[in-house]
């Protein structure tokens, strides 16, 4: 059973990625050079981190459209903090970023939980609010590289054991999620709440609280990514990562996380993000206009959803005796 599930989703996606990489490599061997692959992974790291956060939200039948705005607001706040207090150590900045992101996630979660507002409406609203706040606090000004301290900018780019810190953080988050999803009661609760909210209530799981927890996780990761993003690109302004939330949701959907909740895996989210990351990085190499990227991502979403819809289609009830023996 588990075997066949892997077969139907993650394996197929992994195959598709390998075929894609193979096709690119056949014409541009440089693309598969280890150094380039490290680059591609590093480039995709923020998407991986956010897709994992989004995954738990989607598992609970919600959606978080405010991730990119959260990222941008946190990025702006820590960048401004850095210009005011250049000596603030990076670990403390990261704690502040995660904390601020969590608070924004909590706000989403409370609106969904306590006021029972549909998640898409809540996060569409907070998305705009968070972007608006960036404008208010920055006055629409950019914070440029020369205003940031060196330590602030260097951290995500520092190379440890051959990989930049940004990549290592994505890997740590990934490991954290494998444990969270597979080995904790909260991870199990995400599936129960999304798979059957009524049954979850009768099992003693607090559905609203679980959804709120998912939003906090998503928000915390958006906050963390906010610092990493601003530091890596050494710039902060109102519109950074504009529209990135759609890419995050797309990665989840391509990775087989059911938008109806209750179905998904860490591996799926990772592969979905990698697929988009590879497409994005390969297009300039193969000399296709980056504008095609949108069309390709869009097609991938539709293909993935169509594929999942057919594989999830229930086969109906087994009524015939012979069919029962056959399965």
């Amino acid at each position: 059973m588990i075997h066949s599930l892997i077969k139907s989703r993650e394996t197929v996606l992994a195959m598709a990625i390998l075929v894609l990489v193979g096709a690119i490599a056949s014409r541009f061997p440089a693309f598969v050079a280890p150094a380039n692959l490290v680059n591609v992974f590093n480039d995709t790291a923020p998407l991986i981190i956010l897709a994992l956060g989004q995954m738990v939200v989607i598992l609970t039948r919600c959606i978080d459209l405010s991730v990119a705005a959260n990222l941008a607001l946190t990025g702006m706040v820590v960048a401004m903090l850095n210009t005011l207090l250049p000596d603030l150590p990076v670990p403390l900045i990261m704690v502040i970023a995660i904390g601020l992101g969590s608070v924004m996630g909590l706000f989403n979660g409370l609106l969904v939980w306590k006021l029972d507002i549909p998640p898409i409406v809540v996060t569409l609203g907070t998305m705009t609010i968070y972007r608006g706040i960036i404008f208010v606090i920055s006055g629409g000004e950019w914070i440029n590289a020369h205003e940031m301290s060196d330590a602030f900018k260097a951290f995500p780019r520092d190379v440890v054991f051959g990989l930049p810190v940004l990549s290592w953080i994505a890997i740590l988050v990934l490991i954290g999620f494998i444990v969270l999803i597979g080995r904790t009661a909260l991870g199990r609760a995400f599936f129960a709440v999304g798979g059957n909210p009524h049954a979850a209530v009768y099992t003693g799981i607090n559905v609203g609280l679980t959804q709120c927890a998912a939003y906090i996780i998503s928000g915390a990761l958006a906050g963390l990514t906010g610092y990493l993003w601003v530091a890596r690109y050494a710039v902060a302004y109102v519109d950074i990562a504009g529209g990135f939330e759609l890419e995050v949701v797309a990665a989840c959907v391509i990775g087989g996380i059911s938008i109806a909740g209750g179905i998904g895996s860490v591996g799926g989210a990772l592969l979905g993000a990698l697929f988009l990351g590879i497409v994005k990085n390969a297009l300039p190499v193969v000399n296709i206009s980056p504008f095609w990227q949108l069309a390709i991502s869009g097609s991938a979403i539709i293909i993935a959803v169509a594929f999942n819809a057919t594989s999830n289609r229930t086969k109906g009830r087994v009524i015939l005796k012979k069919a029962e023996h056959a399965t």
Partner: protein
Amino acid sequence: MLANTQGIEDAHPQSAKGSKPALSLTGISKSFPGVKALSEVALELYPGEVTALVGENGAGKSTIVKILTGIYQPDEGEIVIDENRVTFPTAQDAGKAGVTAIHQETVLFDDLSVAENIFIGHAPKTRLGLINRGEMLNQAQNLLNRIGASIDPHVTLRELGIANKHLVAIARALSIDASIVIMDEPTASLSHKEIEETYELVERLKAEGKAILFISHKFDEIFRIADRYTVFRDGQMVGAGRIKDVSERELVKLMVGRSVDQVFPKRAPELGKEVLKVVGYSHPTEFEDIGFTLRSGEILGFYGLVGAGRSEFMQALFGVTRPSKGAIRIDDQVAVIRDPNEAIGHGIVYVPEDRGKQGAVKGLPIFQNISLPSLKETSRNGFLRLVEEFRLARDYTKRLDLRAAALDQDIGELSGGNQQKVVIAKWLATKPRVIILDEPTKGIDIGSKAAVHEFMAELAAEGLAVIMVSSEIPEILGMSDRVIVMREGRIAAEFEGPDLTPEHLVRAAAGIVEARP
């Protein structure tokens, strides 16, 4: 075929207004896999008269409604309307033939206006083929006036109460010129005033010459508004005639007078000490002043009509909803249950009625479904241990004789009976003291039913206190040591020992005062 019916033959000759039936069914049979829902039933409806259809749950009342409205096709038998033989391959065909049904939960569109609801599908058109709104509103107003409803046809349906929604449904029935109106427990969820209004409306429809089939469990209203009755029992028509020729006692007898052919496990209950005491549990809208005690080893049945507040009370007891008043004692200690988690902590578990909706988490494998409420026990330092979860699942599924290929199979792939076993296993794994089973055998086949009954007896023998909510009289009688009957949100009666008879249960549930014959 009519040998076991009484009074049907005298229906034809002396009927003043409806000398000929507007609709008659003869020899209608309908089977579903494993169940014969209807067996050669007959039913006649007369213009300008109300025929009450009575019978216990599962007697085949809703099946006949579905056949009359074209949702089911009968396997055998014929439907005759105004002396023409008809068939209803689809619901539209039934509508065209003039049959319309008003359901307990009205099936209309909450966000459309009253006028749009009345005319959806057959709205008056302009010459260009567009909907003629003015004409539609006019006609809607006329129809509403005709049934004496003071409803503005502009407002959206959502703003109306249930009684007014019924009126809209009736206006819709009139708009398609229905001659046969089926009312399926129309007063089940109405207040007293609304019920009176519904009765007036029935009178009006009668005056317009409609033939009305009125399904109800309430004897007072049957005797008040019906002209004729037809009784179904176990998918057969067991009696029909004029209301004035029958007494309540005779009707009850027809409804329940069965030969009990189901076999229930023999039990020698050994009652232990009191584990649960409920005092004065109340809810603002759903139930009031529920109190009882429960001893270990006991099976306490809760009987009542659908909507009597049994499940609502159980949900409050389990902490899904909160009571406004009342207290519970568990092992003679005051206990507070504010959410299901606390109930589970106190050893109370609830196996809900609707397995698909409230029990099984599809998408999770069997073993994870079972371990879901027991994750605290199967994990260490906050980390789940799959091996422990598997062991737990294996132990309890073995006990319940679950038929599954593997425990990591998705629960959605199991049959209904086996899903029920997984849900029960899930709760047993929490080692409860009190288990509430809400309609535990609803919708499962006879064989699985017997297994569930057997198992219930075992649980009680092991000292568990069992509360069983059931609408099936044989099951209540066969399994319970004591039965509480609920009616309209209150405890109507409590029976045990020799008092535990089908007649007593039905009378208490229907609110028939003991003094009347």
